């Protein structure tokens, strides 16, 4: 018995839905959210310097750490993802099996648990500094998701392309490098943009292993000042500004990519 196929699949991205590319009005959701968050931060700092200015002074080094974790992890995750994605479609059973196992295992374990595991459980055997361990945990996790994106991207390119390349006398590796991957890249980039935004937000989880990121800096401030409402308002707004900035950037990248078509 087969279930009836749904008429349409609904795809909800994690970040790149804002900005909506077709939305060209002056008051787009993105603009309202982005400039609104900025205005709120500035307004609070001006109108109620105590404690807002103190909070804003306290958290910047946390923002730097959040960036370090995010950028470090995405770079490493792309590398892992590419290997995992190519491994998944490899002809060699052992390679494709290993890649599939990695993807299944990692996707089945919550990121928070992975972070604890790499830091505290493996910490007994290998001494990895907190920041590096945060980056590794995030990259290992997101590498699995990106691996799936890479696999789907490559498989979306019609078989005829490979066959044509082989007919022209290219080797399998050459066909992949010069024909398939460049085309797959266009398909892959938007979902990878989404993964990047998701990773940025998930990076707040690393505050659990005493990495002094944006969230932990906020928690430290709140724990001493008891200004919970004010501190977490600022932390939420700062995260919002950062994610919106990057989702816009990714949106623009995608637009350029499609314009080149």
């Amino acid at each position, binding site marked *: 018995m087969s279930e009836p196929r749904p008429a349409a699949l609904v795809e909800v991205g994690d970040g790149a839905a804002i900005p909506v590319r077709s939305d060209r009005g002056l008051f787009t959701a993105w603009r309202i959210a982005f400039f609104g968050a900025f205005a709120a931060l500035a307004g609070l700092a001006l109108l109620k310097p105590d404690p807002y200015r103190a909070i804003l002074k306290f958290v910047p080094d946390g923002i730097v750490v959040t960036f370090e974790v995010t950028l470090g992890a995405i770079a490493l995750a792309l590398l892992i993802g590419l290997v995992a994605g190519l491994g998944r479609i490899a002809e060699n059973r052992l390679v494709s099996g290993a890649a599939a196992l990695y993807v299944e295992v990692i996707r089945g374990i919550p990121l928070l648990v992975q972070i604890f595991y790499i830091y*505290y459980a493996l*910490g*007994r055997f290998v*001494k990895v*500094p*907190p920041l590096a361990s945060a980056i590794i945990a995030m990259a290992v996790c997101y590498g699995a998701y990106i691996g799936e994106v890479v696999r789907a991207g490559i498989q979306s390119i019609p078989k005829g392309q490979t066959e044509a390349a082989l007919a022209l006398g290219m080797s399998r590796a050459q066909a992949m490098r010069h024909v398939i991957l460049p085309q797959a890249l266009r398909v892959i980039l938007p979902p990878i943009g989404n993964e990047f935004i998701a990773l940025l937000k998930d990076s707040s989880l690393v505050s*659990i*292993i*005493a990495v*002094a990121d944006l969230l*932990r800096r906020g*928690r*430290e401030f*709140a*724990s*001493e000042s*008891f200004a*919970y409402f004010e501190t977490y308002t600022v932390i939420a707004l700062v995260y919002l500004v950062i994610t919106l900035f990057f989702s816009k950037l990714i949106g623009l990248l995608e637009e350029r990519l499609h314009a080149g078509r």
Partner: protein
Amino acid sequence: MGTIGQITTKVTAAVCAGAVLLTLGLAHAAGKTYTVATDATWPPMEMVNANKQIVGLDIDYLTAVAKEAGFAVTFKNTAWDGIFAGLEAGQYDIIASSVTITEERRKKYDFSAPYIDIGQILVVPKAETAATLAAMKGKKVGAQIGTTGAFEIKKVEGVEPKSYDEIGLAFEDMAAGRIAGVVCDEPVAVQFALQKAEYKEKFKIVGSPFTTEAYGFVVRKGDAALLDLLNKGIAAVKAKRLDEQLRATWLR
């Protein structure tokens, strides 16, 4: 088996007993059950035992206080980070979680009379030669976020503070060699550094406590009725020297 007369007698007796209990309850003007927040990651003061029960000196102490003052308590395991926010939000009425009475906290919350005196102490790996926290310059020293231990580390110039969600995670990080010291309440330090099998070979306690602090139970600002009950209970516990028994049981 019994005759109707006997049953009537029994019922009457039960009603009478109920009435007496009710009157007693009213006489105490309390008999109410209060919810108490505690971060049960702070042995031997508060912790979760093998049967998943919250136990510890604080737990026994407040239970004794409640008994003396005639109210009941139920404990709720709550993460330390945000424990004060939950009190403000009304999720519980009392915090009994080794809370040191400080001026900053007093501005926002009301404290009971002090019930135990303790101090902060430094724990280091056995090979460490520093004799004070000040001698740990240029090194990373950990504590639980938002504790007086964390505040003490920040006061010392040149020591790099690290904050953890639980004190156990700080000790584990020191065992892994990532930080050079941990500052916490003395009873907790004794528990981790001298009694835990996996740590007692590795760690030592440096000198004696370098602060003088007192724990208090915390209530919302202006909750005078509850504060009064707590203070009466603490006075009774101290008068009966129950506190000394509890110390002997939990702090070895």
